[in-house]
């Protein structure tokens, strides 16, 4: 088979940050080629260069024997390369059909859009997607669609351009299990027609389900290329993170000895959380588990004052929590960090340093911010988090996703909290950044800080929590001690229902 596309020695830097040092990809006709690597490894940058969204600084891209250097996405599209972006590719204020045919609307005289022809072509495309797009209404505004439906619109949009090569950038991350199966059926059909596909995914099982070849990248470099049938999960993880780190992941932290009580919560309600009571000791990591959205996040937010509390008593280090706002919680050493860095975390467009010190600033009562002192205060946090950056004055967007998340966590840690509330802090960041984060948290816990950790990943709770409270429909339905903690125990407990006496406040429907 001849390679449809061959990229070699592709490089890209943004200011001082090297996003891609030596990107390499050999894509055969009709294959599904997976690019695997942790966040910040350069796979997104490589795809953007191939798609014409960013220009490369060096290296070559050869498409069907012809050397190309796309300056705009339009040029790449004209050459038959379509990209299914994760989020940025759609216009929320336009309808589904508007978006799909944007820029290539079937036309009538005078530059008018031929609406009938457009609907006809829409129906044809929908037919190719089968169940996946069965309920998609062409006239709904894209902004009114759920995320998974938007992703499906993105896929149809790419298909409508009849491309030779499709880049799927984490296209499955917002789809549910059934949708992924339908999507894979589509991918196989495209493969039979000779379409080549580049596939980025963080889900290991998907790589084995759909991939033909896998390219592994690390730190902006091409590491290796393997046929999927001749590799294993362990081998891929090893290639991805490097061997030393792999050992670190496997090394479980030692058991800690919790100290005296530091936080006590009685009958706290707010949002979905119903009458939550808990005790937290110095140096302890208390996990919150269960299925998604059972009131874990709302418990943390209600504690912090991020949502309105409906009753409940909170005592921090012997003192009643005096107020219901985040500012009051912060004053008493209660800090909340969300994994949703886009919405609740990063101050976009602002320098890294500002993002780090804003926590200290809102806690202190000094009217003047002293630059030098503040820098000194955040320096240890930066070192401990192994933050990778150009200069502290660079905008936070210059960092990779994992490093942005570290900054958001670091902001909370720099205030020296008594109790740290972590709301799914590692959402969307890679193994290495996770490891750095937890290493720091463990260290701070050894110094007496207490943590409540909600995680959507069971393994994270098993690795780090001293005990876990399992939630179901807003109530704590089980407590699992460290000795009994296992994936099986967590799953079993998550299906329990609340005891009768906890049902005093029925949820409003």
């Amino acid at each position: 088979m001849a390679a449809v596309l061959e990229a070699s020695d592709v490089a890209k830097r943004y200011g001082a940050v090297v996003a891609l040092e030596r990107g390499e990809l050999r894509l055969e006709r009709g294959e599904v080629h997976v690019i695997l690597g942790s966040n910040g490894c350069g796979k997104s940058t490589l795809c953007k260069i191939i798609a014409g969204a960013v220009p490369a600084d060096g290296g070559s891209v050869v498409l069907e024997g012809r050397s190309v250097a796309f300056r705009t996405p339009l040029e790449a599209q004209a050459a038959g390369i379509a990209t299914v972006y994760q989020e940025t590719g759609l216009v929320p204020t336009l309808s589904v059909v508007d978006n799909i045919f944007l820029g290539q609307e079937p036309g009538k005289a005078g530059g008018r859009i031929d609406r009938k022809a457009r609907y006809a072509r829409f129906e044809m495309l929908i037919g190719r997607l089968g169940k996946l797009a069965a309920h998609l209404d062409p006239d709904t505004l894209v902004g009114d669609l759920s995320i998974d439906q938007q992703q499906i619109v993105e896929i149809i949009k790419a298909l409508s351009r009849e491309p030779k090569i499709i880049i799927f950038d984490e296209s499955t991350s917002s789809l549910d299990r059934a949708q992924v199966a339908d999507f894979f059926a589509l991918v196989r059909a495209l493969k039979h027609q000779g379409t080549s596909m580049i596939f980025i995914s963080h889900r290991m099982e998907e790589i084995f389900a759909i991939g033909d070849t896998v390219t592994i990248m690390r730190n902006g470099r091409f590491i290796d290329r393997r046929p999927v049938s001749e590799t294993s999960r362990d081998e891929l993880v090893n290639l991805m993170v490097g061997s030393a780190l792999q050992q670190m992941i496997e090394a479980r932290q030692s058991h800690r000895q919790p100290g005296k009580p530091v936080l006590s919560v009685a009958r706290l309600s707010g949002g979905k959380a119903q009458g939550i009571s808990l005790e937290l000791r110095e140096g302890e990591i208390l996990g919150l588990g269960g299925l998604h959205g059972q009131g874990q996040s709302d418990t943390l937010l209600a504690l912090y004052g991020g949502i309105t509390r409906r009753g409940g008593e909170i005592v921090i280090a012997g003192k009643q929590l005096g107020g219901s706002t985040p500012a009051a919680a912060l004053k008493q050493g209660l800090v909340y960090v969300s994994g949703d860095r886009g919405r609740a975390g990063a101050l976009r467009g602002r320098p890294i340093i500002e993002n780090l010190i804003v926590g200290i600033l809102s806690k202190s009562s000094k009217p003047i911010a002293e630059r030098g002192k503040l820098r000194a205060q955040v320096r240890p946090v930066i070192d401990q988090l192994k933050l990778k950056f150009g200069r502290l004055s660079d905008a936070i967007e210059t960092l990779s996703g994992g490093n942005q998340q570290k900054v958001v966590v670091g902001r909370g840690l720099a205030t020296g909290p008594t109790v740290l509330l972590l709301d799914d802090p590692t959402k969307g960041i890679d193994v290495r950044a996770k490891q750095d984060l937890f290493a720091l948290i463990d260290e701070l816990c050894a110094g007496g800080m207490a943590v409540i950790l909600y995680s959507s990943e069971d393994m994270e709770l098993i690795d780090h929590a001293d005990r876990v409270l399992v939630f179901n429909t807003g109530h704590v339905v089980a407590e699992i001690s460290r000795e009994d903690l296992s994936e099986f125990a967590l799953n079993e407990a998550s299906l329990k229902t609340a005891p009768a006496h906890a049902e005093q406040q029925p949820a409003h429907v």
Partner: protein
Amino acid sequence: MSDAVLDIPSRNRTRRSRSFWRKPWLLSAVLLVVFIGINILIQPRFFSAYALGNIITTMLPWMLIAVGQTYVIFGGSIDLSLGAIVSLVNVVVVVLITALGGGPGAMVLGMVAGLLLGTLCGALNGFLISAFRLQAIVTTFATSIIYGGAALVVLPQAGGSLPTEYFTVYSEGFFGLTLPIYLLVALILVAAFVATTRYQKHLLATGGNRQAAFQTGLPVRRIVMGAHAIAGFMSAVAALCILGVAGAGDPLMGQAFTLGSVSAVVLGGTALAGGWGSVTGSIIGAAILALINNIIFFSGIDYIYQAIVQGGIILAALAAGVFASRRQK
């Protein structure tokens, strides 16, 4: 793949009717009816041919400029120099027609030159904004000072006069209908046509998510520049219409139109952030502003309090629209 095709359930088409309730101009249409009602109450002869003709003549420049502003706002930009463009075209046309002797040929030439000048001014705004990625608000504020200053150079004081044919044709029109009525119909038809074009779709896409529009391959810079050029052209047409009533040049004539056009656009339900709205709404919004003027004029309010009352009513109309649309969502 063939078995997948059999699996499609019958698609739900009833949702399409729901999109009617999301038309941006719907709320402004309700407001229009309310204000027409108030006008009839205080001016019983509102529907007489004479009164209607009059009010359409005063509305027309507002509508033209508001429509131009709408396209700019669709694309996620804004133009604060439209009023200054009106002033500049206004005086240049008067001076030019006078200098060329005031005959029919001079009038045609002067009008064509005015339209060209307005379009160029708009295009320059668009060029500065898209080529150098300047902020639209500040850029057009600066160019508005330049255009307004140029108008004062051309004609330092209000004056000059046009041949009488210019405004008799304008106010008498043809077949018993005044020219503004024909122009209003033409404006609505052209706007309706543009609404079906690729261009308007691409403009809305650019305003709705510029990054997405760029990645899709749309020439976003040219699209935004085009919208500014259209707005400049519409402002020039408005300047010619104003001359048809005033008959003389005034270098400060256009000032009120700049923010007035933005108010009309917002009253019409178009999002200032771009990407969402309707030209129909802006035409209705401009009509509402004119009706508010009319109410003030006929209400017998003391002259010195008129501006305060007028501002209050505009604020109330805006607030009503905003609260209603919040409830809707």
